[in-house]
């Protein structure tokens, strides 16, 4: 018998985001699969009523919240106090939260403060023989484990995109506000804002259907003996504009940028996919000018359909890592693809 706290932050408009609703589905499933367990919803934000109403029919026995202007910003010191207060108020034994940057930053600290344990980047929850368990990957998506714990409270950070978001009727939730007192020292970090490229130059699109990965080959000498980074930029940006794909990169390409080489100007470490980069979730992925070595392709673990364009028929993509490998010059293929996409538009 567990007391399962679904923990989420409200968005700027007061509602709960998709990642939060996915975590709610997982929390609700755990509560129903573990006999005698109850579900409690815990929210943090400026004004939480809209969010609570949004999930009022989720079956939570209670709605608890820490609310107020101090809890609007995504900040370790205040989120720590808020989350700890909610866990205590709910007497929670299992806490399920979305692995957003906000909860990723703080929930291990809360776990430490409450003498609990935590699993982050969880990809699923299970119940076997009446015991809850989680699945997560180790060594950068190279091996998958099922983990069970006896220690409570147990914090579970569920990665976005790993389940269906909960949906249900909007109603009116009765929210119990929980006190979370702050000191001045807990306010000494202030959030100044969000820094992002202009919308038309943003190349990272987590909700895109397609991931387009560019490798270092785009900057190498072409058959005429010269590198053509300007044309590479034009081809890649043209493709992104036509398909609204999200742009990924191999480490070698972004490292070239960091070392001051004249390469693809829009490429940063934020685009990097793989061992020391991200592991995005998209239904399809197209790799170009990248050999598909293991440190890169571990970042493709959650790309469902994979195709690659590479001049080398023996590159790593051919070793069971892609569904289709086109042995061809990516410059030529992308020119044709862009022409076809333009003609269709």
């Amino acid at each position: 018998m567990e007391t399962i706290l679904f923990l989420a932050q409200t968005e700027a408009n007061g509602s709960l985001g998709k990642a939060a609703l996915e975590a709610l589905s997982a929390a609700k499933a755990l509560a129903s699969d573990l006999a005698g367990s109850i579900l409690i919803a815990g929210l943090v934000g400026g004004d939480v009523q809209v969010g609570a109403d949004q999930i009022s029919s989720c079956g939570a026995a209670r709605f608890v919240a820490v609310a107020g202007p101090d809890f609007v910003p995504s900040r370790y010191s205040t989120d720590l106090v808020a989350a700890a207060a909610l866990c205590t108020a709910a007497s929670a034994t299992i806490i399920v939260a979305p692995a957003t940057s906000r909860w990723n930053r703080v929930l291990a600290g809360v776990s430490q403060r409450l003498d609990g344990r935590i699993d982050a980047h969880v990809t699923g929850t299970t119940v076997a023989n009446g015991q809850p368990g989680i699945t997560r990957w180790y060594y950068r998506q190279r091996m998958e484990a099922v983990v069970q714990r006896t220690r409570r409270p147990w914090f579970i950070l569920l990665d976005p995109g790993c389940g269906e978001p909960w949906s249900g009727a909007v109603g009116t939730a009765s929210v119990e506000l929980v006190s979370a007192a702050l000191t001045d020292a807990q306010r000494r970090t202030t959030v100044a804002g969000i820094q992002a490229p202009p919308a038309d130059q943003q190349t990272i699109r987590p909700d895109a259907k397609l991931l387009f990965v560019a490798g270092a080959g785009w900057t190498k000498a072409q058959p005429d003996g010269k590198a053509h980074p300007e044309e590479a930029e034009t081809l890649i940006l043209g493709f992104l504009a036509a398909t609204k794909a999200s742009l990924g990169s191999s480490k070698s390409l972004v490292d070239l940028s960091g070392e001051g080489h004249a390469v693809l100007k829009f490429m940063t470490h934020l685009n990097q996919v793989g061992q020391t980069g991200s592991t995005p979730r998209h239904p399809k992925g197209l790799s170009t000018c990248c050999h598909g070595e293991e440190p890169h392709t571990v970042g493709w673990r959650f790309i469902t359909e994979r195709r690659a364009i590479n001049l080398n028929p023996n590159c790593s993509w051919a070793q069971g890592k892609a569904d289709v490998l086109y042995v061809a010059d990516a410059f030529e293929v992308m020119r044709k693809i862009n022409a076809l996409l333009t003609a269709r538009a």
Partner: protein
Amino acid sequence: MSIPYQIVVCGSLVPDPLQTLEPVSNPAGPALKNELMLPAVLDPWAGHALFEAAHLAKQHPGSKVWLVTIGPRAKLQQVMMIVAQKVPFELVALDGPASGFAESAEIAAALAEAIQAIPGLDRSRLLLFGGWESASRGAGTTMQMVGERLGITDQFQGVDQLTITPDGSLRVLERVEGGKHQVSLCTGLPALLGWATGNLPEPPNNPQVGMLNMRTVMPALQRAKPVKIANDGVAFASVALPKQRRDTRIVKDLSTDDIAREIVEWIGKD
């Protein structure tokens, strides 16, 4: 305002990313096959944290960098031979597991204890650095727990940039969703920064730095305190490699036009 910082960097070892990894089951829990034989490197994100620490220390005279690390002593020695040539630091070593399956709360306890034992540590000048995740456990939990144990409540994760403003405040860029950064200002120390990639390239090897570092590295390794990780209360029901291996269709004989057409059709399919 220039403050001589005390920068403590936490970081462990991970298998060289090019190695093939296979899990095995031991009486003590899961491990990697031939784990002690696998070549190891400093965890990449911890490496970024170390290079950023050294860069900051160079800009602020009087600053000092410690590298607090846990791993099997013999492997630590191998890895330090390389890392010590990169940037100046003083090593604090713990002889324990570097496994991704080791419980992060217990690792955090050992690291926090080692940091607290550093002589002359001044909280008003303390910056605690580490990687925002590791390439082994990949959870991003250890540093937060170390910080919490040390009472550090200004914490930042996924940091790509730290700027010291003229009044000594910290301006921190943290990665958030959708390829964006959250900008925060922190007006006091201590603070904890879990680094993502940062902006610095890996420094070239510098034999002089290596010789200086080795004066403290070898004694630190010799007195490395043994640390036992019990993995209390955790059970691994299974650890397995992914089963899916794709049956790759290698297309060699299609014209560029046909390849382009096929890809455009594939992209357009739901």
